[in-house]
């Protein structure tokens, strides 16, 4: 069952999200630091690289547990995190972003920005495909662009084609260098998920299937993606840290150390990569039950697993475990339904402000998320270069949390048909106002926060009816609308005409990427006609034009100014309660030595993590 949050998203989404901000923003809970507050400068997190002396011997195995099986193992079909994780063992991808949000070389040795309109990427000269496919060259990338990305039909079923929509052409400059030309200048292109982290298949493997498709074989793309050669990574050569050993359905995925790994002992950080990876086997175990995964981590059966926010403290107190709490740009929000099947006063900005003012975000962060989240006041994390605190209007923290003032504001903003009878807010029908709050199942924090929201709004005299559903049901019944062609979309048009199948007023628990690298990507959420404005927000300001101007701005300073204005407007308008930014929490056996500082890019160099001693018997 899918959940909406970082650990369930696709490679493309994860890449777009885990980007760039400043280094070391996260908190890391260790025995010495269990406050959960995190360190703004990242200097006291207990996992700074280089602190541990020891022998970087090759240990026998790394075992991590995940809740679900991969959907598929083709880099062209990947649409979920479970699949990305397995593919990443065999294919590094082009490059990643480091803790400062800067380019970090993997397959691509270096790049050159040619006036923001073209970028030249140069591959390392040691990249080899498996079997008899030879070296990875610029030709593989050019062919990929012309026959996969730019093909008339998406014959291969590649979901990442929209990432390349700004690319005009890809041409080879020499054997190792290819040039990506853009339709419009884009100073941030390298940080977008088009080239960043992308993996491809060798031309020699793909081309025969392409020819079959051209000859009329409609299933050629599928045949390629499910072929043994692809799902067993026979083509991967030296392009990733591990080679495929076996996959046992719903049980485990086993990979063995790649003796020819191209990245070993190379710059940057040649010392860290000296003998990488540092484990003979990498085992991914599928343990669907959270309690089983956590018990295995405690007892030493696992090297690593993710931890739930509300149980972090008990692990932080465990000497055998290191907890790393990493901030993410995922904003976990309370959406106000402003379409015709929501409470009509939610279209009033003052009413939305009043509701946001009555919910104490600090309580949510401290008492429900156990400190593993940050209060949010707009749709951008505070570390984003496009966030300007002076433009942001806070609601629900410190002085801006004020149920008394919220009640006054509500009285002021609601029509005369509404009124208080004692503590109850009565509607035009003389009955107490009741709002429907929907949220997804799957995590205790969703349920606890749902109850807290109900209690907080109860202080305003509003009764709240809570409903929890699986995430896909939440999307289908409460977010999707049917457009005139009968398609299920997230913004079919006029909010008075198009609504979801089921009525709702508030939606909690969904978490959205705020794209701190490219905030222009948020236009679909906050413009009236945006493809993701499922909640019917109609901004008073012309956000469409503001987004458009900000994206088109030639220099970074103008972009910063424009986006700061937009995020200021959003914080004032409260189209949704921005509530919190999630942390992602990692639990490692204490013997694991990390080689990077904590940042939103955590794990960009995880194949250089090593262990001071054997982790498992």
């Amino acid at each position, binding site marked *: 069952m899918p959940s909406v949050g970082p650990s369930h998203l696709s490679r493309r989404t994860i890449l777009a999200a885990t980007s760039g901000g400043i280094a070391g923003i996260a908190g890391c809970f260790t025995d010495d630091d269990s406050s959960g507050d995190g360190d703004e400068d990242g200097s006291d997190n207990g996992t700074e690289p280089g602190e541990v002396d020891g022998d970087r011997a090759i240990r026998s195995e790394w075992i991590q547990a995940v809740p679900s099986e991969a959907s598929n193992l083709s880099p062209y079909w990947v649409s979920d995190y479970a699949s990305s994780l397995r593919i990443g063992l065999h294919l590094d991808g082009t490059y990643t972003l480091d803790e400062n949000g800067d380019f970090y070389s993997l397959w691509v040795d270096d790049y050159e920005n040619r006036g923001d309109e073209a970028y030249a990427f140069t591959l390392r000269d040691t990249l080899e495909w498996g079997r008899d496919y030879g070296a990875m060259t610029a030709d593989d990338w050019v062919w990929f662009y012309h026959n996969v990305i730019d093909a008339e039909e998406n014959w291969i079923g590649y979901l990442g084609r*929209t990432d390349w929509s700004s690319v005009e052409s890809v041409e080879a400059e020499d054997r190792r260098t290819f040039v990506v030309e853009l339709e419009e200048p884009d100073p941030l292109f390298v940080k977008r998920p088009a080239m960043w982290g992308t993996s491809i298949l060798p031309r020699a493997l793909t081309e025969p299937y392409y020819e079959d498709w051209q000859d009329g074989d409609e299933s050629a793309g599928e045949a390629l993606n499910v072929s043994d050669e692809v799902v067993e990574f026979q083509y991967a050569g030296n392009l990733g840290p591990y080679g495929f050993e076996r996959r046992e359905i719903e049980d485990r995925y086993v990979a063995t150390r790649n003796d020819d790994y191209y990245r070993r002992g190379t710059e940057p950080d040649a010392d860290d990569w000296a003998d990488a990876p540092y484990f003979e086997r990498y085992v991914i175990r599928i343990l669907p*039950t959270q309690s089983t995964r956590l018990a295995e981590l405690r007892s030493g059966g696992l090297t690593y697993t993710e931890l739930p926010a509300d149980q972090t403290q008990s692990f932080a107190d465990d000497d055998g475990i290191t907890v790393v709490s990493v901030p993410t740009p995922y904003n976990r929000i309370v959406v106000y339904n402003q379409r015709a099947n929501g409470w009509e006063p939610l279209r009033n900005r003052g009413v939305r402000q009043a509701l946001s003012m009555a919910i104490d975000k600090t309580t949510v962060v401290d008492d429900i998320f156990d400190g593993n989240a940050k209060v949010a006041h707009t749709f951008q994390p505070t570390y984003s270069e496009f966030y300007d605190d002076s433009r942001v209007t806070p609601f629900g923290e410190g002085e801006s949390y004020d149920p008394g003032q919220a009640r006054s504001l509500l009285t002021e903003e609601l029509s005369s048909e509404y009124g208080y009878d004692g503590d109850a807010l009565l509607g035009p029908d003389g009955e107490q106002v009741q709002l429907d709050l929907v949220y997804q199942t799957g995590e205790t924090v969703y349920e606890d926060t749902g109850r807290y929201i109900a209690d907080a709004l109860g202080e305003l005299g509003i009764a709240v009816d809570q409903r929890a559903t699986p995430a896909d049901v939440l999307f289908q019944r409460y977010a999707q609308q049917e457009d005139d062609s009968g398609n299920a979309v997230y913004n079919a048009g006029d909010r008075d005409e198009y609504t979801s199948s089921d009525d709702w007023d508030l939606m909690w628990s969904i978490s*959205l990427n705020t794209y701190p690298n490219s905030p222009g*990507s948020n236009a679909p959420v906050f413009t009236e006609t945006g493809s993701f404005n499922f909640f019917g927000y109609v901004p008073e300001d012309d956000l469409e034009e503001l987004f458009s101007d900000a994206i088109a701005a030639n220099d970074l300073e103008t972009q910063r100014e424009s986006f700061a204005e937009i995020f200021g407007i959003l914080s004032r308008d409260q189209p949704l309660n921005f509530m919190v930014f999630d942390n992602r929490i990692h639990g490692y056996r204490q013997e694991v030595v990390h080689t990077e500082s904590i940042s939103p890019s955590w794990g960009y160099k995880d194949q250089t993590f090593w262990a001071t001693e054997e982790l498992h018997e």
Partner: protein
Amino acid sequence: MARYVCWRLLWAVVATCFVLTVTFGILSASPNPEASQAAWEAAQSGGDPTETREILEQRRGETGSIAEQYVDYMVSMATFDWGESFTYNEPVTTVIADAWVYSAITVIPATVLAVVLGFAIGLYSATHQYTKTDYAATFVAFFGISIPNFWFAIVLVLVFGELLGLTPISYDSEVPFWSLAHLSYLVLPITVLATSAIASEMRYARAEALEYVGAAWIKTARAKGISELQVTVRHVFRPALVPLITILIADVVGIIFATAYIVEVIFGIPGLGYVSYQALVRMDTPLVLATTLIPVFLTIVANLCQDVAYTMLDPRIDYEGGSR
């Protein structure tokens, strides 16, 4: 008898088709979680959710009308060409062949334990009604029936696995199959499976046996000087066995596809119950239909075997209309 068996087999085919049709209908009407998630992400990043959904449907072969898809699936089921699992990119038969072993190693011992211990304790309770041992057995039975399996499994893991370190926490398929170490991985799952089943069998066995404990032929048998063991086994258990058989089939199928699923999820056992559940969650239609077909057909055939067994256990029963 032969005519009766043929009729029942024919009915098995009809019932199986009906169940498969209902399953297909429910699957078709349900949202696809993977497509929902991908469409949601696409819309947020400004992409086209409809196109994304279409790509994913195309990958899964859901390109024709519902009627066409239905005919395709039913034909493939009938011809035993069950196709490939969308999720695992493996033939459905391979997935099932790999998974059933893991279910069998827990379900078979649990069933044997349930039948042997459940019937034995039930008979003992019946023949020692209202004694302390009967009360103790009744307490155990109600405990086994009442306690939720998922909760019991988690508590056993936490107490015996994590706290005391006496047993492994989750199943490890890399442990040699024929080894004592492997047995240690199966102790907790079998305990959970057997607990509720023993309790159920025991209560039925006790209730059935009580009907015969005070029967005239029992008194006659005792008067003849037959030992208590012989009285219990030959004169109480044998007549009680016929109705007990009726619950056995339902219990075994229930263990495999209900309780076993919970146990497999909690202990990380990649068995048939878990695989079939995941197939449902992921809307892996070929695998769902295959994993539905097997238990349905097995249940119907097992019921037939059960009916035939009646005639052997109780010669008075005759399905051809005659009676002795």
